[in-house]
């Protein structure tokens, strides 16, 4: 299986923020979810991959080639709709069908129908959710091989989000296709992502198969006294409140065998993020 995305030592340096170095591989036929708090560098990572912002260092390979060569096969949805409010929905097709040789008019209209978007509608009349749907239709209509999505499901109602997630799953049924999706709606990622990459303050803290990640980490709920007895090697971060003590632990299976008396619960991606950002590091 070839990698649709390969990043080696990608760095983008600003005066007050540095992204990376990031090493990342997204194999064909898979979805990678990119998580992280606001300002962690998710959008910068996607922009750097595409050369929208120029990386300070590192190498980027998309679909086995340089980003500029791959752009014809990439669909992109960033965290906003980038089509002017002075355009109509059908104007997007007039413009992009001249940009992408593989533009499929029928497919674009199918998506418009599916998303309830009228071609004659002015973009300024569309809600944020409808604009995101328009961006998605535009990203998919030229039959890309790689989708780069930055908060693409934000502002959409659960029903439409579910439909779109099904589209994503169908999209990656082809082994030549892949998706990198950044999202704060981690439940969406838990549903569809094969891999999870966690960016925190510009650094890639975790990058692994989602199932392995969720299986290997766990949430320990115990007393302060119990926690003192636990080997520090298992503990990633601790959160203490007046009434409870919780710890994010690694190597969940080993931990359960070592401490059968203590209760370890499954951890969600949200909890994983909160522990790492807000917890006391062990």
């Amino acid at each position, binding site marked *: 299986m070839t990698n649709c995305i390969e990043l080696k030592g990608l760095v983008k340096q600003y005066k007050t923020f540095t992204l990376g170095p990031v090493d990342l591989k997204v194999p064909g036929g898979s979805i990678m979810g990119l998580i992280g708090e606001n300002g962690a560098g998710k959008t910068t990572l996607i922009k750097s991959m595409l050369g929208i912002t120029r990386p300070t260092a590192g190498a980027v390979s998309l679909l086995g080639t340089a980003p*500029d060569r791959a752009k014809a096969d990439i669909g992109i949805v960033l965290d906003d709709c980038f089509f002017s409010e*002075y355009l109509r929905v059908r104007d997007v097709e007039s413009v992009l069908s001249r940009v992408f040789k593989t533009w499929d008019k029928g497919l674009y209209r199918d998506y418009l129908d599916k998303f309830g978007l009228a071609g004659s509608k002015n973009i300024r009349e569309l809600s944020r959710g409808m604009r995101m749907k328009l961006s998605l239709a535009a990203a998919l209509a030229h039959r890309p091989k790689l989708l780069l999505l930055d908060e693409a499901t934000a502002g959409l109602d659960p029903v439409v989000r579910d439909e779109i997630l099904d589209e994503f799953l169908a999209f990656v049924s082809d082994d030549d296709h892949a998706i990198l999706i950044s999202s704060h709606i981690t439940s969406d990622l838990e549903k569809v992502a094969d891999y999870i990459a966690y960016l925190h303050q510009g650094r890639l803290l975790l990058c692994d198969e989602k199932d392995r990640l969720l299986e290997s980490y766990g949430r320990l709920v115990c007393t302060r006294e119990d926690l003192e007895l636990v080997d520090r090697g298992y503990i990633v971060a601790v959160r203490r409140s007046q009434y409870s003590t919780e710890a994010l632990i690694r190597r969940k299976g080993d931990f359960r065998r070592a401490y059968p008396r203590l209760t370890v619960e499954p951890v969600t991606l949200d909890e994983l993020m909160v522990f790492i950002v807000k917890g006391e590091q062990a």
Partner: protein
Amino acid sequence: MTGLILKDFLILRKTLRSYLLMLAIYVAVAFLGYWSASFVGGFMMVMVSMLPMNVFAYDKQAKWDVYGLSLPVGRTKTVAARYLAVLIMFAASAVLTTVVSVALNIAGRMEESLGEYLLACTVCAVLAMLVNAMLLPFLYKFGPERARMMFFGVMGVIVLLIVAFLLPLGGLEWIKSLEIAEPTFAQAAVIPAIAALAGAALLALSFLLSRHFYGTKDL
């Protein structure tokens, strides 16, 4: 690239429509003889000069540049598309001005000769082209808001310099006292062509500068 040119015209659709409406009113008033036909040519050139700034402002509002750079077009072609769009705007307004001028001339609503009038329009067009050739690299470098301020600043300075030059000589009276020979038909035909070439050369220079600014831009 044609997609990007089309995009520029589509986002200007409403503006262009309102300009055409205003032009129709101005032409009608000129036909009725209430004001000089030269006003129409001047109006066209001022309006067409404002269009590129509008496109940049609309793009900025939509954050189009970020999306535009994700498209398989490349930075050089993106800038080239914008310059071609500007050239098309100028060409279209030149054709329209000529058509209107000829019509006003045939209707006998022109104080000046047609040659003299077209020559004046050409001077206006070259000035407008010069302004745009200066303005476009500013727009790429500083964005529409700051470039607009700089543009008006530069225009203000130019006007002040002209006034400072003319006042000691007697102002507009001095210009009126100049005896400028009416251009021959050949002059009226050749001068616009030379002026158009000079304008195109200026735009080419401006393009190289804009390409440099946009090529190094980090969005």
